[in-house]
């Protein structure tokens, strides 16, 4: 019963959040400076052509009616029609989603495979001369450098010295998996720098918190090997904040993908939204933001479930044990 209540509560709060986001983004795109008619049709468009465009996309109707039509399109799954391509937004999002998903998965993998060991290493060697300061400096840099700066730099350097990697073009994974990977590694690396840094810092803090626990001292006293202690006592007990962070970072990476896809010319959801913002393609921007909000919500639910599995005291049904 408690589980049903939990799921019901999450479903309701998620729906309310999505509704709030939909209102905000719907209003925000209409408050952006610049008219859709001039942008979509160009300066030579006549008043009749502008009026015809407004009628075709329902932009001549009262705003609350436009919002209602859009919500109905979202519920129908097509997310409205793009003023630029004249095609349903949902289909294009679906076509572009694999690129963004691949980019995000690669970046998350890099965050875990690099960030966690780096965090553990800097924690267990947190003594003068142990390299902790260098680690903190590097992770500080990683957090501070914006993706568009790092991305532009990487594009410039690797356009000269490719080293077998590819920038500026993209190959579908279905056409040539190896070539696809060669086009995705650098964008994923740029995208992952922030999350690697944050993961490393969070892991370091969590591990250092666990290191002072009595059960770790006892394990050392029992003469257990350092690697055994790390695996069996430290990592599991330090995992909760790290897993939470990786979950939220995954959703964050979608925001970073906006920039990285644009800079590296990858045909994913991010570049779709960036171009739509520039062209005031309302339906696309709205759908993109709503999709991102949906991913945040889903990731939060997954994190809650995963954290509960790792530490039953924090699980969704933890109340039964109290």
């Amino acid at each position, binding site marked *: 019963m408690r589980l049903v209540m939990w799921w019901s509560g999450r479903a309701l709060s998620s729906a309310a959040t999505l509704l709030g986001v939909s209102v905000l983004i719907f209003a925000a795109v209409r408050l952006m400076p610049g008219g859709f008619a001039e942008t979509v049709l160009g300066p030579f468009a006549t008043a009749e052509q502008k009026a015809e465009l407004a009628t075709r996309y329902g932009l001549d109707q009262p705003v609350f009616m436009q919002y209602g039509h859009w919500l109905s399109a979202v519920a129908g799954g097509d997310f409205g029609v793009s003023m630029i391509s004249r095609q349903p937004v949902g289909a294009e999002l679906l076509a572009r989603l694999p690129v963004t998903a691949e980019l995000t998965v690669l970046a998350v993998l890099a965050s875990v495979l690099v960030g966690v060991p780096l965090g553990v290493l800097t924690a267990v060697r947190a003594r003068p001369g142990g390299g902790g300061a260098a680690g903190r400096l590097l992770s500080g840099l990683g957090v501070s450098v914006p993706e568009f700066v790092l991305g532009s730099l990487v594009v410039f350097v690797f*356009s000269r010295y490719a080293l077998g990697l590819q920038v500026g073009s993209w190959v579908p994974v279905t056409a040539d998996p190896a070539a696809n990977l060669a086009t995705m590694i650098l964008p994923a690396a740029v995208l992952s720098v922030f999350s690697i840094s944050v993961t490393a810092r969070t892991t370091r803090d969590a591990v250092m918190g666990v290191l002072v626990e009595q059960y770790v001292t006892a394990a050392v006293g029992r003469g257990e090997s350092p690697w055994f202690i790390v695996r069996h006592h430290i990592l599991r007990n330090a995992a909760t904040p790290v897993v939470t962070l990786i979950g939220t970072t995954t959703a964050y990476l979608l*925001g970073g993908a906006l920039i990285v896809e644009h800079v590296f010319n990858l045909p994913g959801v991010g570049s779709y939204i960036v171009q739509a913002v*520039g062209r005031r393609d309302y339906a696309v921007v709205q759908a993109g933001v709503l999709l991102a909000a949906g991913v945040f919500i889903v990731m939060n639910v997954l994190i809650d479930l995963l954290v509960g599995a790792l530490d039953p005291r924090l699980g969704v049904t933890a109340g039964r044990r109290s």
Partner: protein
Amino acid sequence: MRPIRLACGVAAALLASACAATGTTTSPTPAAQETAAPGYLAVADEALPTGGALNLQVHIDSGAATGYDPQLADVATTWQLLSLSYETLVTIGPDFSVQPLLAEKWDTPSPTEYVFHLRKGVSFSNGREMTADDVVGSLKRLLASKGVWRGQLGPVKSVAKDGDDKVKVTLEQPYTPFLAALANVPAAVLPMKEIDDKSVDPATTLLGTGPYAVENHRQDVSWTFKRNDKYWNKGKPAADTVNITIAPEEAARIAALQNGGAALATLGNVDSATMLAGAKDVKVVTQATTDFYYLMLNTLKPGSKLADPKVRQAIAIALDNQQIADVALGGKGKPTAITPAGLPGSCDPAALPSAGKSVDDAKALLAEAGAQNLSFTLSIFSTEPAPAVAQVIQQNLQQIGVTVKIEQMDEASWSGKVYGKAPAEFDAALSWFAGYADPAMVTKWWNPETAGFNVGFMKPDKELNTLIDAAGQEPAGAARDKALAAVCAKADADAQMIPLVTRPATVAYRADALSPSLYATEGYGNVLRLVADVRVKKSQ
């Protein structure tokens, strides 16, 4: 926090776009220019085998919003794309000469009559033979359309078949730019039988007589064109496939060129040649175009000092177009009057009335107008080299005591501010025109009643409009040159839209991947005009 993060992401993406497009105005090293025949930047090596795939990158995928009907296409990027599939009766050759295409020749029995002899054996890509009815129907459809190109065709009185292989066009009065106007994509011959029976919608389907037919299109991602096996010009097109990737970021196009992801790319930043200097096998060429930048002064904004002709003339005098060309365009543009510099018969900008005046004359005009401490905002879009051009304008006008505040915006915000309302809300704005292939064509945009887009910030000038119409009627020769000079002088004095400098096109290609043909000059912004000639050396 999370919505803020997303908002920051969107804002940063825009910033990234702006920053990545921003460059310095350092002098580029000399670009590699191929030695080719007169009028050409490069000529394809016909000794190379045909076939292969040609991989290109361009910055934008325009046209979908208004549909792909050639007659409604109004921007050069769309003309360029459509030119792969559509052809016109005549075309533009090197140095802006008008040459035969679907009409193998034409007669002009009188200054108001043109008889086009249609080429035999021409088919649309669906295999149906082109007929005189297609030609007549296409021109009549264009004349009845609301497309911007309708106005450029001039005073057409009638279009009629003259037998099965000739078409006669009669004008109300002589109109010299007629053939040049026929040479652009909006005047393409369409499959009228299919359009009339509604089996083809030209807004969504490209069906023409051109060298390529569309195989696949993903909006803002890519186009794939396959050779039109029914193409009338035997041996062309040389390449079997043309893959066009849409890459909005210039840095990404440059990277793709350098590492072989693209064989040819169009570039916008004049400094790109410098960035590609030394890149192995990459050649960068600059095509002179008739496109030109111009400054708009809003004379309709209530209370604006810019409504006073003396103030506008002072501004025109103070602008140093040569400095704009040298500093902002790396020496690649040319100062121009309203007839684009480089076109045969265009005016000499050094002979304009404002060119003979000094800074002191400009100050005196401002004093007469009571505008000594004039200050206004110049609205520009963020694409290079507009910011650099604006900075030179700012410094030029500072010399006459005019303070210019530069307002840099993304293109959508800029379009909304400049074209969104009448009267428009801006003080001054910077933009550019396609200059076309006849000097009288673009002068029509100085008549807001014809152009339409500038009705919100520009007052019609009857005298100027009369001069523009007169210049259009004069046949090529000394009398026309004199008429065009009068138009230039009057527009210079009117100074509601002040021409600045021409806008060159930069093209980069891999010499190890292809052998291209490129004209040295272009009037319709079509870098791909000779794409059917390009020989592929190796496909990436």
